């Protein structure tokens, strides 16, 4: 379409015809989008295929289907203990992040105070600062300044900080559109602050709080680089387990674990999308009518 830039619209219309240009454009838009989805999907589809394949490294030569890879992965003691470890860390860290994030969202949307903009900016930084820098900085800080050796506590603290911005952004977006006159009405009818929060505010923001928790949970669960610097020898984390196996190209177990993760995420996402407005939360377009 570069030729159009220098000429007015009529000349190009004469050249091809308005209808045809329109059609061509929209077709190419669909083609590009289709190719993109293919790009996003082919690698994941291949992992799933290889998880069921006798030859786990590459498609050709294809030697038939098997469930052995899954059996191997699920039987692995180290896999199960690191999966439990990651679940625990993610759940504790996301819970802390949710409590802090919800409180902070109220402060940002309801009150004016000094350094409010600074506070907001610093509340979002943990999300954008490269993981390697946050990981190394926290490691040095804990080990050299505070004398705390890396372990479960340090990784939970790091992940709770990392999860905070996700909760903060999602919940404060919801609170901005919240009609405060509802709370006023409840207060006028004699409800105390606790009742107002429990019966009026919480039900409205609950989906956003849930989405924020989920985001913080996923971020913690899939994090490798912060966990690398902040876990000790006794803290097992799934990403570290996977990383060392990818390095050795130990494909059979990895493919199976990866496929299970894709399935798990697919099911969770399908449920979440039917229950709530996931796209809204992700793309930041949550509006009053859900």
């Amino acid at each position, binding site marked *: 379409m570069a030729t159009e830039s220098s000429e007015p619209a009529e000349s190009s219309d004469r050249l091809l015809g308005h209808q045809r240009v329109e059609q061509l454009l929209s077709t190419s838009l669909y083609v590009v989008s289709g190719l*993109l989805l293919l790009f996003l999907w082919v690698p994941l589809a291949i*992992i799933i295929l290889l998880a069921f394949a006798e030859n786990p490294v590459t498609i050709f030569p294809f030697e038939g289907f098997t469930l052995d890879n899954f059996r191997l992965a699920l039987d692995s003691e180290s896999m199960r203990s690191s999966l439990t470890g990651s679940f625990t860390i993610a759940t504790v860290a996301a819970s802390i992040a949710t409590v802090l994030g919800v409180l902070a969202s109220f402060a940002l949307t309801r009150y004016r105070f000094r350094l409010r903009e600074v506070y907001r900016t610093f509340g979002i930084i943990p999300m954008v600062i490269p993981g390697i820098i946050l990981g190394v900085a926290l490691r040095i800080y804990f080990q050299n300044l505070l004398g705390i050796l890396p372990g479960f506590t340090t990784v939970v603290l790091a992940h709770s900080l990392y999860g905070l911005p996700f909760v903060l952004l999602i919940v404060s977006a919801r609170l901005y559109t919240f009609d405060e006159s509802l709370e006023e009405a409840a207060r006028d009818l004699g409800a105390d602050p606790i009742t107002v929060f429990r019966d009026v505010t919480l039900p409205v923001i609950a989906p956003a709080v849930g989405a924020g928790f989920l985001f913080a949970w996923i971020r913690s669960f899939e994090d490798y680089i912060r966990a690398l610097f902040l876990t000790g020898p006794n803290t097992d984390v799934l990403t570290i387990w996977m990383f060392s196996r990818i390095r050795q190209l130990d494909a059979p177990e990895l493919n199976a674990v990866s496929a299970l993760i894709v399935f798990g995420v697919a099911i969770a996402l399908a449920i979440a999308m039917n229950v709530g407005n996931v796209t809204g939360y*992700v793309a930041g377009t949550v509006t009053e009518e859900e």
Partner: protein
Amino acid sequence: MSTDEPDENRRARAVRLLSGPRSRLGITVGPSAAWILTLLVAPLAFMVAVSFFEVSSLTYQIIYEPTLNNYRSLFDGGGAIWQTPFVTALWLSYVIATVTTVLCLALAFPLAYLLARNGGRLFKVVIFFVLLPFFTMYLVRAYSWVLMFGPGGVINSTLMSWGLIDAPLGIFNYGVPAIIVGLTHAYFPYMLLTLYASLDGLDFSIIEAARDLGASRVEVFRDHVIPLTLPGIIGGSLFVFVPSVGAFITPTFLGQGKVQMIGMLIENRVAGTYSIGYASAASMFVLVSIIGAMILAFRYVSIEELGGA
């Protein structure tokens, strides 16, 4: 109203506590502010300090005497400045991150535009297929490209078994192209969702009006679509560029030892020899450049508009 009579006393006290504007502010701001101060500001400040101190290579203790040795060692490799591991790694990281960002922007715009213009069923299905990789573990996605690339990887072996090529192609081996593909795959959803959020708020009747008034498609795109979605473009670029600069997992696996980006260099120095002075000094350069990019971006958008992902 209250169902828990026995707690009435404690409850009354809690209510009184929650009523004062000062204590309310303290309760809401306090905990997260404490977290940010002790787990973000203090560690970063300490890192700045460490970058100016010597660290004993025997005891790994910090020797609290100001020095510039760490910064000197970044640029001191015996040869020319631009040949030191630090400068090469940093430069390469910027190049790779820039290419990745441009690629993501070019790929995501058509899809985001299509999604914003078409609601309904198709939209829900497409967004599901975009979100699924987005929520899938980063490590799994990086690993999927480890299988795709390489001399015996899926791409090469498929092309060979179809008889399209006789020997594995170099471009599908591990290296910089593989890293760019892996990073694009990893951060593409951030760009798409941020762009979609800003295109979704776009009033498409403006475009029709401009077209009716005789503007060409390119003119409409340049004069209306781009300026109106600028916050999304800048926000999305930031969300792709910043993590790409500091990437570690993707370049480690898809470079297979042939490529060193800055994140790998820092990890290598800390995990290998615990050279935290060197690592801190190197991190300062990354941090400063990221802050610079963000300040530049904030001239066009507010941090709230960036809240997309």
